[in-house]
């Protein structure tokens, strides 16, 4: 029914501006500090027939004006589901939601938006080929009239930019933006509606530390305007830094809400998972001299027909982790695409295990033991409408024992999947009845890690491999990387998480405008040095 209603709204809406003022009026006077803006009382959400346990089991949660409220929990704890409920994407099974004291029942995201609750999703939702302003105008169209108020949108965006210190160029195309800029554009898209409550689902996973700080300033700025901010993350330090209160979920159970002053990192960790010992990689020096990947003077043409990789040369040896740092959009993506057979090389050579593999297909690379953790997990890494089993065999289906003579051995795949589910602790209700669409973000990432890393690859090309993983899984993955390194795998690690790159890599290359600004020894490098190179400033000493 709601579809029909929405469709009618799409075609029969009033002008945005009017409607938008209407929102404000309906929502009453601006909130006063400390007022409870939205409250979930004994909320229960289940997906019967799919999950036996409840996804949210009698959750109490509230957001007050002027606070940043952090939501913590492991992968699959139910954070995204709770956020989706508060912002009208999911309907609750039982319980009650109140907005400023009045009981409400949302029938659509727009409904929630009208009540002043907006959400920024974990996955990016903007159309890559359009500009920021066009995207937002499109969003308006989706919600109301058929007009395309581009000028108006650009004006208001500038105004919002000013007000919150959110730097976004309304005329920039989304695909050209860095992760941080995209994130800001996503935030703009919902801020446009002047929500009272803003929910952000893992907004910091892909940001550089500097961008995280910027984002926090914005969040504090909103709180200062008596908005309520809900902030979902896996990083406890971030919670301690920016939040006023924190709520912890554990496998759908409410573990408690605490003011930040009355809690500690240790307590939060314990509430979340129990025990984890912090992981400090101890590394032995690289033993082997045998090169696994050799890249010689590589040139790659990017999306717009401009050269995105402009002459890159490097070698990764057995048992070496080679990190690539850099602000997104400096050619890392194109470099990885070329190395994994997804983009044609203009000139130069790629050699794996002594074999020239320039412009070879991913399939041929896989035969040489090259595995790839892609950047876009939902869009590229899995086929969402397919089952867990079909996704777990995606890399290996064409070779025995997964299939023989072209016939898939489902018994084997089932056994294999069970093993990986256990080993990588993937939360999935089933193997052959579950579409991976319904898995939580972190669990999809685990599926991809499991699929690519169940064998020891000769060469692993990993694009922010720990994106969206909780603390425990993150630690496991880092350990696994170190173990693979010791066994002689060569690993190319691309990440915007500088801390991760620095703690895992043996050497780090910083990419800037399609070239390496320099290659440094990770044990000697400093954050400042790498930061300088990321900004395009040459360091004094280079060791290739």
């Amino acid at each position, binding site marked *: 029914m709601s*579809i029909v209603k*929405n*469709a009618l709204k799409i075609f029969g809406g009033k002008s945005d501006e009017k409607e938008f003022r209407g929102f404000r009026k309906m929502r009453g006077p601006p909130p006063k500090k400390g007022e409870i803006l939205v409250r979930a009382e004994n909320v229960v959400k289940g*997906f019967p*027939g799919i999950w036996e346990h409840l996804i949210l089991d009698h959750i109490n949660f509230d957001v007050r004006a002027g606070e940043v409220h952090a939501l913590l929990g492991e992968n699959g704890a139910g954070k995204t589901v709770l956020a*989706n409920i508060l912002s009208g*994407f*999911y*309907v609750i099974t039982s319980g009650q939601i109140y907005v400023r004291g009045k009981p409400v029942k949302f029938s659509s995201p727009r409904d929630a938006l009208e009540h002043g609750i907006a959400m920024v999703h974990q996955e990016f939702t903007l159309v890559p080929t359009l500009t920021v302003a066009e995207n937002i105008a499109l969003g308006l169209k989706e919600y109301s009239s058929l007009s395309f108020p581009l000028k108006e949108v650009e004006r208001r965006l500038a105004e919002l930019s000013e007000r919150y210190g959110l730097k976004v160029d309304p005329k920039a195309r989304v695909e050209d933006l860095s992760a941080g800029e995209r994130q800001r554009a996503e935030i703009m898209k919902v801020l446009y509606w002047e929500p009272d409550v803003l929910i952000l689902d893992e907004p910091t996973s892909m940001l550089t530390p500097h961008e995280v700080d910027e984002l926090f300033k914005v969040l504090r700025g909103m709180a200062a305007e008596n908005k309520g901010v809900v902030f979902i993350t896996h990083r406890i330090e971030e919670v301690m830094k920016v939040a006023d209160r924190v709520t912890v979920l554990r496998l759908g159970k409410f573990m408690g809400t605490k003011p930040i002053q009355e809690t500690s990192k240790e307590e939060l960790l314990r509430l979340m998972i129990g025990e984890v010992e912090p992981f400090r990689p101890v590394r032995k020096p690289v033993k082997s001299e045998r090169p696994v990947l050799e890249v010689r003077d590589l040139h790659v043409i990017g999306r717009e027909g401009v050269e995105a990789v402009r002459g890159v040369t490097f070698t990764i040896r057995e048992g070496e982790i080679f990190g690539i740092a850099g602000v997104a959009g400096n050619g890392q993506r194109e470099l990885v695409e070329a190395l*994994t*057979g*997804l983009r044609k090389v203009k000139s130069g050579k790629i050699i794996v295990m002594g074999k020239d593999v320039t412009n070879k*297909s*991913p*399939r*041929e*690379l*896989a035969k040489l033991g090259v595995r*790839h953790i*892609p950047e*876009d997990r939902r*869009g*590229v*890494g*899995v*086929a*969402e*409408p*397919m089952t867990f089993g*079909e996704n777990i065999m*995606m*890399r290996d*289906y*064409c070779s025995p024992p997964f*299939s023989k003579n*072209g*016939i*898939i051995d*489902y018994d084997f795949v089932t056994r294999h999947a069970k093993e990986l589910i256990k080993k990588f602790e993937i939360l999935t209700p089933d193997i052959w*009845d579950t579409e991976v*669409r*319904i898995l939580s973000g972190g669990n999809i990432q685990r599926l991809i890690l499991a699929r690519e890393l169940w064998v020891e690859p000769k060469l692993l090309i990993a694009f922010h491999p720990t994106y969206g993983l909780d603390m425990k899984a993150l630690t496991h993955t880092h350990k696994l990387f170190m173990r693979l390194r010791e066994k002689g795998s060569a690993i190319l690690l691309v990440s915007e998480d500088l801390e991760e790159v620095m703690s895992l890599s043996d050497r780090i290359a910083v990419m800037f405008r399609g070239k390496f600004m320099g290659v440094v020894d990770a044990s000697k490098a400093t954050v400042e040095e790498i930061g300088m190179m990321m900004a395009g400033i040459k360091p004094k000493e280079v060791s290739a």
Partner: protein
Amino acid sequence: MTSAAVQGVKRLFQKLKRPLLESLLAIIIGLIIGAILMAIFGYDPIAAYSALLIGSLGSFDGICESLANATPLMLTGLTFAIGVKSGYFNVGAEGQAYLGAIGAIMIGSTIHLPYGVHLAIATLFAMLMGALWSLPVSALKAWRGVHEVVSTIMLNWIALFFVRYLIEYHFYEPGRAERAMPVLPTARYQVLGASLTTVIFVALAFMLFAYFLLWRTTLGYELRLTGSNPEAARYIGINSTRVIFLNFFLGGLAAGLAGATQVLGRPPAWTIYKTLGNVMNLGFDGIGAALIGRNHPIGIIFASILLGVLSYGAKFMMYLGVDPDLARAINGAIIIALSLPELYRIIRRLIVGRGAE
């Protein structure tokens, strides 16, 4: 039965419960709409519906006739379904069925061979003719990026006039120029009753083969992976050209066989007419069968039988005096109602996006 088997059956039932209930509801809605239409035009819906049911299912001949109607539809439905599973909108079954029919005539009525051999070769040749007609679609798609809807529709028209030409100038029956030469008795499937022949078993075998191919083999996996997320297929290194050719080729084989069923397996004519009346619209009706059957080979079998019953039964409504056009409109209402759940799913995915419950 072991408890595992009980579990398995329970699972299967759980999985099928929703589609079955939906389809049941859709049939009821369709029948009600049909009844309202009849009531508006002054007919007695109960009498008409019972005529339909008794006519198509109340006698051995009726059942045979309904099944004979269903036979080509399951195959053309399969053509469309394989396309959807691979991510393509293949509406070329119509023209490919014409080619299959004329292919059957070429072998069946001109060459002399012993019984079984003749039949087998004629059938295979017809299938290949259908598949041949799919090659330009694949080539245009793979190397020129031409959208398959455009190329298949064009080829449907070309097939229509090409086959008419072949009948008129090369394969007409001397003395009865309005049709092609009927196939020789050595190229006819055994009659089971009324106009139902053993060709239905060939059709069913092909459906099972398609099911096996799509869900048990690596080739089928590649088709379905490409259909569910082409980006993922690219990332894994699946050869998209191969997927395109395989998908349209398989579809062509099925559609070619559909055409053959009307020639090698359909008394009393055992041939096609210059109007192509007895193969016309098989491709388009097949799309209905595919939508009703949720684009699943097994679902399509049942959907086609339902369509066969409706189309044959409609005659009996006409005997009661229901206007032929109204009878068709009623069938149309039922078919649309049945296709709605699948269409609804597609549209919902477009509007609401991921994860809406």
